[in-house]
């Protein structure tokens, strides 16, 4: 439904030689990554590896120092976040960013705003196009509520919800954009096993049923290896490996980045 202009198999997002430095810190260093339409790719790596920075450059929060990002044939390097969102890239945040005083439904409806065309006056009198639009958007919001199993929470303010549920609402709002590419920054952080399983189910459903491309940052390796088509590994800003979950798990550099060298391990054990 939202496969984007690029047909499945073709590169939808191309990141080439992108770097970002903060003073002397090289957050991201010459990373190149190509993501095909409809793919579910995970970016993993130790803390401070540059994962979130990479996501921030894709969504336009950071401007890359060097390199280029091309999405659906358009160069979006350094474009404004609103422009990038309008092109069909949506994201969720590591720290939940919802409108706390608003209900679950309102938060989701807000995500639809990029698709609303009715003017102020017609919206105000709620007639004609505005009414038709509102109903169509509400129907879409209901599909998301069903997908993410939020039926019992429609009218609840998000501030009172449990952490795992707020994460779900945030995902629903991101999906309300009808994105072609979805960027998820640790959607399962701080969740218990059951909540993680639910979230993994939802992400898979979005990816498989709607064909939405997903870039996932996640620390839970069991989940990553279970649901990803492909995994890219960052360490200290550099991409050190890329491949299928199986390939990545066997990659010596990855093992070293995660577990340290044998010597380092001995030192840690002795300490």
């Amino acid at each position, binding site marked *: 439904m939202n496969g984007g202009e690029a047909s499945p198999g073709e590169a939808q997002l191309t990141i080439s030689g992108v770097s970002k430095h903060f003073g002397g810190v090289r957050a991201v260093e010459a990373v190149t990554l190509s993501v095909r339409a409809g793919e579910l790719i995970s970016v993993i790596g130790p803390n401070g590896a540059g994962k979130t920075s990479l996501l921030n450059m894709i969504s336009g929060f950071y401007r890359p120092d060097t390199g280029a990002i091309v999405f659906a044939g358009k160069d979006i390097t350094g474009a404004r976040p609103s422009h990038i969102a309008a092109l069909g890239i949506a994201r969720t945040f590591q720290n939940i960013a919802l409108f706390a005083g608003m209900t679950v439904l309102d938060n989701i409806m807000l995500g639809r705003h990029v698709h609303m065309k009715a003017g102020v006056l017609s919206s105000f009198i709620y007639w004609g196009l505005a009414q038709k639009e509102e109903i169509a958007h509400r*129907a879409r919001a209901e599909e998301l*509520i*069903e997908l993410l199993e939020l*039926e*019992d929470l*429609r009218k609840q303010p998000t501030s009172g919800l449990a952490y795992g549920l707020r994460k779900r609402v945030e995902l629903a709002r991101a999906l309300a954009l009808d994105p072609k590419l979805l960027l998820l920054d640790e959607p399962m952080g701080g969740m218990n096993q059951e909540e993680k399983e639910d979230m993994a*189910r939802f992400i898979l*459903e979005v990816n498989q049923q709607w064909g939405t491309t997903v870039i996932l940052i996640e620390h839970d390796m069991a989940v990553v290896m279970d649901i990803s088509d492909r995994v890219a590994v960052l360490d200290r800003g550099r991409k050190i490996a890329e491949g299928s979950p199986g390939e990545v798990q066997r990659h010596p550099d990855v093992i070293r980045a995660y577990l340290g060298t044998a010597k380092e391990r001995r030192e840690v054990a002795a300490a």
Partner: protein
Amino acid sequence: MTQSTLPRLLRRNAEQMAARPAIREKNHGIWQTFSWAQYWEEVRDFALGLAAHGFRRGDKLAVIGDNRPGLYWAQVAAQCLGGTAVPMYQDSIASELVFVLSHAEVSVVVAEDQEQVDKILSLRDELPHLQLVIYDDPKGLRHYSSGGLQSFADMQAAGREFGAAHPGYVEAEIDNGDPDDLALLTYTSGTTGRPKGVMLSHANLLGSAQGFIAAEDIRVTDELLCYLPMAWIGDSLFSLVLTLLVGFTCNCPERPQTVQRDLRELGPTIAIAPPRIWENMLTQLRVRAADSTPLKHRLFEFFRGLAERAEQRKGEGKPASLISRLGLALGEALVYAPVRDQLGLRRARWVYTGGAPLGPDTFRFFRAFGVNIKQVWGSTELAGLASLQPDGEADPDTVGRVIPGSDVRIAEDGEVLIRSAAVFKGYYKQPDATRDTMIDDGWLRSGDSGFVDRRGHLVIVDRAKDVGKLADGTPFAPQFVENKLKFSPFIAEAVAFGDRRPFVAAIVAIDLTTVGNWAERRNLAYTSFQDLSAKPEVRRLIAEEIAEVNASLPVAARIRRFLLLNKEFDADDNEITRTRKIRRRFVADKYAAVVGAFYRGDSEVEVMTEITYEDGRKAALTSTIVIEEVLKATEPAREPAYA
């Protein structure tokens, strides 16, 4: 009329009230309605799909999931072809599923969603009879590739194709049906031992339903919310049999979590619920009243007291004074009507409580608030209902009059015997158990002991096998004591002991929501159920609640010692049935150490509990639990001076 079958009634409805709403489902936040004409088309297409896959007369189809129109349609579709429906509890664990599905030789399972499909597929190797698994909600299932796994819609599409090649197939099969055909095979959760498959024919089901409509005011315009487990006979009777017979509208809630809101939105005109639901509603209400402003809380308590006293006087046959009548009128405007509205009972002409006895205090509370709650009694073996209270004869102590077409008799040992067209055909493949239950001339042993009072109302004392005597010979009915305890909003479940013992003691499971709420308001930090239940403050709270209960109990039946269990009673641990009835013997055996400690006078006891997770894994939990004394065991039982 008795010579009908459920599918024939469906065809009648589709012809005679084609446009009337038959069933609704809340989807995307909106109630979607299916008329009787549509109901029939859905059933017919699904039945044709079953036929196309080789489903034949005598085959069995199981449904598992929450109440969905598709799961009701599937049951009627199987019956159209002369098959039998086997409704199952949606929260059954693996071993229960395997037992029922293999014992009943089920060949087709209709599952609600991915969760249920996963459960069934994981057991496939143990189910040689299973050929087809059909799912209603395709979410998450589109990429499953497993032989014999199909969507509901695909089945119906295959059915339409089959129907085009075989015109009139289902209609002819319905005409071939016999009222004595096995329509429903429903497994009793059973408070003892393995579940038993209760065989009910169309004639049994309609026998019960016809007796019911002869006794109760039920209309084609009625609205019912179907939210009770589909495997419970009460749901089958109302959401399948009575709706087909009467033509009223069934409504399926959006999700189990939205039941309360859906209830309020819909405002059903009739309702049936087991005691647990009424107790929950009352608890919620009291928590919300306590959480509201002091003025509102005091208003609520004042008018509640007023109404309960008036109800008590009415029960005693005393006339209400003018002042109390004025007060009630004011209360109706300020409290009673708004509360009924909040509960979703504003339009309800009558509501039933059944399945187990409801505590008289809870019963009185609802009646005092203007809810026409009435007790009904029945059993799976009687196709649901056997007796009910006519309007104006509601009474917390009886279960009303037996429905027309049934005879009641009390055996010498006090057991209630029933004879009617609804008496079941026997337990599936368990002739010995059947022989133990049926006696000559079609009388059924109900398993409950009781008597018929002067008005002609049946009074159930307790499960026949549970009624005992204290050591001094005083009769002891554990359920009576437990229901008193459960009236406290802080107590979720209780098991009372006392048979052949010197005094009454109880194992109590606290209500996590209300006690948690209570603890929060007192800044009492806790981490888990176990932690909360072990707090001395909580023990004191429950001790006070029990002391209050004791004041209303006969002296000999007063609870002297109790213990707060470190977990909830759980159906997965076999401690209660899926319909939330305590498996008394099992609990007594499992907690034999606790019972021993109660009567030895120990002040604490080591409890080892085994917890069964939904996937069948087990874990052990050992902890030392304090036994609390409410009344001194040594103190002679006597009436306190102020009573």
